[in-house]
């Protein structure tokens, strides 16, 4: 039985984020010639990540059946997790002002993309993003960003979420 091992440095989970350009994302938008494309943000220091796909259900009962019947309808998709703050990746290299249009994901950072309600594309490499690795890709909006620190754990961390617009694309790196 095979399993997805994310323990080795070559198999680390990779999450890349870029500003959506109005079209559906493609792998080449994130990685070109083996390198992360300009303006694409690689999210560091992930503590955990969860990919959720929850179809809505419609259930009904029939007099000629002892059990409920069900069909699924539209799905609710979301990504969630926690990360340790890297100030450059979290707050951006050159965040735009409140009345300015959003810059790139690198410039805005995670907090800026959330604060500006900027639509993003996101790709998650379950064990890296090299040839043969499986990935999940989608578009959506950052949510639930809540940086926090405490006296007995003096490292800033934050939960994060991405509310997905539409369906996931699941594929393998060619």
């Amino acid at each position, binding site marked *: 039985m095979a399993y997805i091992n994310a323990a080795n440095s070559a198999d*680390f989970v990779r999450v890349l984020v870029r500003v959506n350009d109005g079209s559906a994302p493609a792998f080449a938008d994130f990685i070109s010639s083996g390198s992360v494309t300009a303006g694409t943000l690689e999210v560091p220091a992930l503590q955990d990540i969860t990919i959720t796909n929850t179809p809505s259900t419609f259930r009904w009962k029939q007099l000629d059946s002892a059990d409920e019947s069900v069909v699924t309808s539209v799905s609710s998709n979301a990504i969630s997790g926690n990360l340790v703050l890297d100030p450059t990746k979290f707050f951006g290299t050159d965040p735009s002002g409140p009345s300015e249009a959003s810059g790139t994901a690198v410039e805005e950072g995670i907090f800026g993309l959330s604060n500006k309600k900027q639509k993003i594309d996101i790709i998650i490499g379950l064990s890296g993003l090299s040839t043969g690795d499986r990935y999940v890709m989608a578009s959506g909006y950052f949510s639930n960003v809540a940086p926090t620190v405490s006296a007995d754990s003096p490292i800033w961390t934050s939960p994060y979420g991405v509310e997905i617009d539409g369906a996931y694309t699941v594929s393998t790196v060619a």
Partner: protein
Amino acid sequence: MRTELIAALTTALSSTGIGLSSELPWDSAGEPLYMKNMKRVYLAAEELTTAVLVPVLNGSDINRNEIIVRAYLAVDAKTQPTGLSSAITAITNAKDTQLISTAYERLADYTTEFVGDVLIYTFEYRFMKIE
């Protein structure tokens, strides 16, 4: 940490009548230096314990380093020095010295034992750092 504690205790103990040595408490003819030279505080070498504070999926874990420094003071149990109580307080409070700027948690406690007619105080400082 040991260097900073020595600097802090040099000042804190100056009016207590209790001395301070910068030497390690090594054994001389089977007897630790603090037994041979009573009423003088000796600080042992630092000890380090590393534990993962925040595990990370895609990079280096964030570690918590616990640095332990022990100090020893021996006094005559029959005739204790007049400044002993002040010295004990000063030694314990040295954990808060601002000469140590990287610790986010500081702990200090002490235990006592008798060896013949000698009362031995063993202090333990514990400093937590993020790496």
